[in-house]
């Protein structure tokens, strides 16, 4: 039995259904990231877990106990908000200990807890200040301190890093990861940033329009996206989604990619997914991540199935650690990720290796994965 | 239904109060006499009652010539908290009596002989369906001229006996460079003056028919039209800034000699007294020309409410004291008005007061004591105010001709009836 279980959760505002039957579960000590574009319902889902919003139907269980009807304070959770939600009228110490005060914890115990958390987060020198006297990063730390001090069963983070600048965001991300590793708490974390999702999560739920599109480990989500939306949303640069057709090639199936003013590329498929044969002669969406489309020398050695084709390079983007090259396939710009020192010029043709082991196929009608 | 409701609340109140056995030795008095002279006059009554052991609980609400007080009274009655007595004017007493909230002082009236001593014209308002419901405090009369004697001497004027005399006198003043007529351009002042103009123009019979009986033919008549013409004539003698002026400022113009004459009720005398002026030497009081022998009156009354039993004794004491000869004399000497009973000796009154008392007696006996329409003693408030509207609009030019004024007057009074 999982630690956090969400069963068939629905949430309706009048006529509008915000959450359309969410099923998610998370093991103890896990780190669940809810990710999706704004308006997908991820924050609402978090709020229902916190008890800040009621649910229309379904059940939320923590540690085997249904908590849907409990007051937020009775759910044994702690929450870090996007704006940090520090009480402006209280000092840092007051902010951290407010929850304990509400539960009637004696003053000396509160002080001990404050000191402990302050040490962990290195905010001891800030305890007497008011939130308005703190920098963004400091506020973030205090907000986390307020959550940590409760030692709850479940931590909830609502886009906690989105108000920080890029550098600080990376630092805090690492900090959160370290905190998770050292304290072993269970965390549910909302973000719209797929990098945060990939780096922090043990489980990711990709959401759109009040539905979970895919639920799984970061690797599953990344390598086996369930549909075009997930494939497109996760990963940076995004997966190349190229309109293609499935052609027969005597022995087996082949992916046919149209090119401008040149004959199409035909990539033979060795271990095509079973469902693909039904699409013979029909259009599909061919998905390949930039790192699976590279120069033949840089191609993954142990990949079982690589096809190479000459491509016309339109743009070259050296990014330091890698070089990205843009070619045109199936009427779309397609990004290939080459080694940093790959020697290619825009306007020339060069062979590119397609790692077809990592390629995925989607039905353009349903947008679902063809398996 | 309202009546039932009010009586119901009164009963409830009296039931609750009947639990107390002892009488409440206190009178609660709503009034709007808050200025120095008026308060001093009323203090006489307070003192009289104190001598009999009754405390005076003052409920003064000034403003708008009693408007604010009447609003407060309506609220108090709606709440079922009746005062022992309230200062009231004319038809208001009858309205409250019709609503069944007034007390009954008939016994006291019989004992004190009020039926004989109080002029019949006043009893029309203080007696409702044979029951005494109010005690009249005074009689004001409004058809007075108040003249600055120094100015009068300077221009060589004599007492005007007719309207034409009056116009001639005003012309003299105009020629001498003083403002002939001091008028406050507020509707009640204009209408009060018009009361006198109508009495002067049409005579007592006409006034009664038009302004007390609201006789349609009289209201429409040429005499009424002539009255408006006369009013228009008078208005030509007014200074340009008269509009909106308070009556006491107009009186001050006469006192200072900026103006010759003011047409105003006898309360104006208080202003002369306050300025340490004496009648005969500093100022003159004449009847409005052509109205000698008649009195247009208004009267302050103390309406007596249907208070709980334990407060009735105090109420009787208040009513008795109010109509006692000594108080009537003392009060009215200060207030400038004349006693509400005709058997009070005039020894303490000044010349104007003495004349007022004599005039009242004569008018009462001769049947020429008429209620002032402008002051709410000629007709119910709806009509009186409609009348004031028309007069004021005529004075200020919204109504342009006397013909139109007569038409409007008839229409307005019909509408309000």
């Amino acid at each position, binding site marked *: 039995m999982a630690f956090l279980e969400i069963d068939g959760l629905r949430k309706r505002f009048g006529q509008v259904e915000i959450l359309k039957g969410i099923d998610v579960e998370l093991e103890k000590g896990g780190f669940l990231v809810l990710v999706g574009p704004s308006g997908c319902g991820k924050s609402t889902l978090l709020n229902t877990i916190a008890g800040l919003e009621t649910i229309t139907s379904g059940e939320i269980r923590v540690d085997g106990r249904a908590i849907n009807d409990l007051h*937020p304070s009775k759910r044994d959770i702690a929450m870090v908000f996007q704006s940090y939600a520090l009480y402006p009228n209280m000092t840092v110490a007051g902010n951290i200990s407010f929850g304990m005060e509400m539960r009637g914890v004696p003053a000396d115990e509160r002080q001990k807890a404050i000191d402990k958390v302050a040490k962990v987060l290195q905010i001891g020198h800030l305890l007497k200040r008011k939130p308005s006297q703190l920098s963004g990063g400091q506020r973030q730390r205090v907000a986390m301190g307020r959550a940590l001090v409760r030692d709850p069963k479940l931590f909830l983070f609502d886009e906690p890093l989105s108000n920080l600048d890029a550098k600080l965001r990376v630092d805090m991300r690492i900090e959160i990861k370290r905190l998770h590793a050292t304290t072993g708490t269970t965390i549910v974390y909302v973000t719209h940033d797929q990098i945060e999702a990939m780096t922090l999560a043990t489980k990711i739920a990709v959401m759109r329009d009040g539905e979970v599109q895919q639920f799984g480990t970061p690797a599953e989500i990344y390598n086996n996206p369930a549909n075009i939306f997930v494939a497109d949303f996760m990963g940076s640069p995004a997966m190349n989604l190229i309109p293609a057709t499935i052609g027969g090639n005597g022995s087996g199936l082949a992916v046919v990619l149209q090119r401008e003013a040149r004959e199409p590329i035909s990539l033979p498929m060795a271990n095509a997914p079973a469902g693909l044969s039904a699409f013979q002669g029909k259009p599909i969406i061919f998905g390949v991540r930039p790192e699976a489309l590279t120069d033949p020398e840089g191609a993954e050695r142990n990949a079982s199935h690589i096809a190479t084709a000459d491509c016309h390079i339109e743009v070259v983007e050296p990014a330091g650690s890698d070089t990205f090259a843009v070619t045109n396939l199936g009427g779309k710009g397609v990004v290939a990720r080459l080694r940093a020192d790959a020697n290619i010029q825009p306007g020339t043709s060069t062979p590119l290796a397609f790692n077809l082991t990592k390629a995925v196929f989607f039905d353009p009608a349903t947008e679902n994965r063809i398996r | 239904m309202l009546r039932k409701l009010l009586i119901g609340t009164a009963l409830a109140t009296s039931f609750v109060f009947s639990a107390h056995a002892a009488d409440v030795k206190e009178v609660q008095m709503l*009034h709007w006499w808050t200025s120095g002279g008026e308060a001093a006059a009323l203090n006489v009554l307070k003192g009289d009652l104190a001598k009999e052991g009754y405390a005076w609980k003052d409920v003064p609400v000034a403003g708008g010539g009693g408007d604010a007080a009447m609003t407060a009274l309506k609220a108090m009655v709606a709440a079922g908290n009746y005062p022992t007595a309230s200062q009231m004017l004319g038809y208001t007493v009858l309205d409250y009596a019709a609503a069944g909230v007034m007390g009954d002082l008939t016994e006291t009236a019989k004992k004190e002989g009020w039926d004989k001593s109080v002029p019949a014209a006043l009893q029309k308002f203080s007696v409702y369906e044979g029951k005494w419901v109010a005690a009249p405090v005074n009689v004001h009369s409004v058809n007075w001229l108040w003249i600055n004697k120094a100015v009068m001497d300077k221009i060589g004027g004599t007492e005007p006996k007719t309207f034409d005399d009056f116009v001639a006198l005003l012309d003299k003043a105009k020629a001498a460079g003083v403002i002939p007529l001091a008028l406050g351009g507020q509707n009640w002042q204009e209408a009060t003056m018009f009361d006198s103009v109508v009495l002067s123009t049409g005579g007592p019979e006409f006034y009664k028919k038009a302004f007390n009986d609201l006789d349609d033919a009289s209201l429409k008549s040429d005499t009424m039209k002539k009255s408006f013409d006369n009013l228009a004539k008078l208005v030509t003698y007014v200074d340009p800034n008269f509009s909106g002026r308070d009556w006491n400022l107009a009186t001050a113009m006469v006192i200072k000699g900026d103006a010759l004459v003011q047409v105003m009720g006898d309360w104006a005398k208080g202003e002369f007294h306050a300025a340490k002026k004496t009648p005969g030497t500093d100022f003159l009081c004449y009847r409005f020309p052509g109205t000698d022998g008649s009195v247009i009156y208004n009267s302050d009354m103390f309406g007596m409410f249907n208070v709980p039993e334990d407060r009735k004794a105090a109420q009787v004491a208040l009513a008795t004291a109010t109509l006692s000869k000594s108080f009537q004399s003392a009060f009215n000497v200060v207030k400038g008005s004349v006693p509400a009973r005709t058997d009070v000796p005039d020894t303490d009154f000044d010349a104007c007061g003495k004349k007022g008392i004599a005039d009242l007696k004569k008018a009462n006996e001769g049947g020429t004591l008429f209620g002032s329409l402008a002051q709410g003693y000629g007709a119910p408030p709806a009509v009186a105010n409609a009348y004031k509207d028309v007069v004021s609009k005529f004075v200020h030019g919204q109504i342009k001709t006397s013909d139109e004024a007569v038409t409007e007057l008839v229409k307005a009074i019909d509408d309000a009836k």
Partner: protein
Amino acid sequence: MSAVATPARQASGGVNVKLVNRIVIYGLLALFALFYLMPLFVMLVTSFKTMDEIQNGNMLALPKAPTFDPWLKAWGETCVGLTCAGIKGYFWNSIKMVVPAVLISTMLGALNGYVLTKWRFRGATLVFGLMLFACFIPFQSVLLPMATILGSVGRFGVTLQNSIGTSFGLGNSTVNLVFVHVVYGIGFTTLFFRNYYEAFPTELVKAAQVDGASFFQIFRRIMLPNSMPIFVVTVIYQFTNIWNDFLFASAYAGTGDSMPMTVALNNVVNTSTGVVEYNVNMAAAMIAALPTLLVYVLAGRYFVRGLMAGAVKG
């Protein structure tokens, strides 16, 4: 914002243009200050004149022989009805009515604003709309029905008094006035607080909920301590309105022992057929207005700050 306006002027003209601009601005401000101060000036000079001087002199002229007598008379001697002890005694009546009325209506407004913004429910907007529209009812038209209800409540109070020995203040005219002002004040107080709390971060409330604070604890510990500006605005607004109310005060509390200042002042100022002492009236008026004037001058700074903080933002 003003900080950025200045460089623009510098850019578009030289020092002279800037100087002329400043002179024009200060000139206009001073001119308007004169316009606003004029009636106060008239009242002030009049209150130091003798009646003779008022009647014979110019109203804008300074007093030739300033006298404090009108002030002394207004304070301690002038007649309010038949009691001639000045208006000093009516301060207390007003204060004991105004203070509870202001506090209760403000607290209710704060609670309502809190519920309407942070605990939205179906129909909350309609409820607010209905309460806001209530601000517009003409008070003259509620005078009588309200009196009827207060009367019944008063009789119930007497019954209680007789049966259990206390009326709980029912029927007491000060209590009545407090009630009336609360009833007709919550529309505006709710408007002020709702607009303020609308911009108040909801996450703070959520955080407090997670921290285990109850409905009232959140209000007391989180909302109220952060509502100072709007509190000042509302209190000033309510204080002014209730202190200056005449209609309800005269209708429900005209009797001497609970008569508020406005009624007393009105009784001094508005005489029907008596001599008007303008100097005393003006002095009495200033004395009566002193608390509100003081509140405006002292709290004016917070007032603007409070309005700024959101009272007008919506």
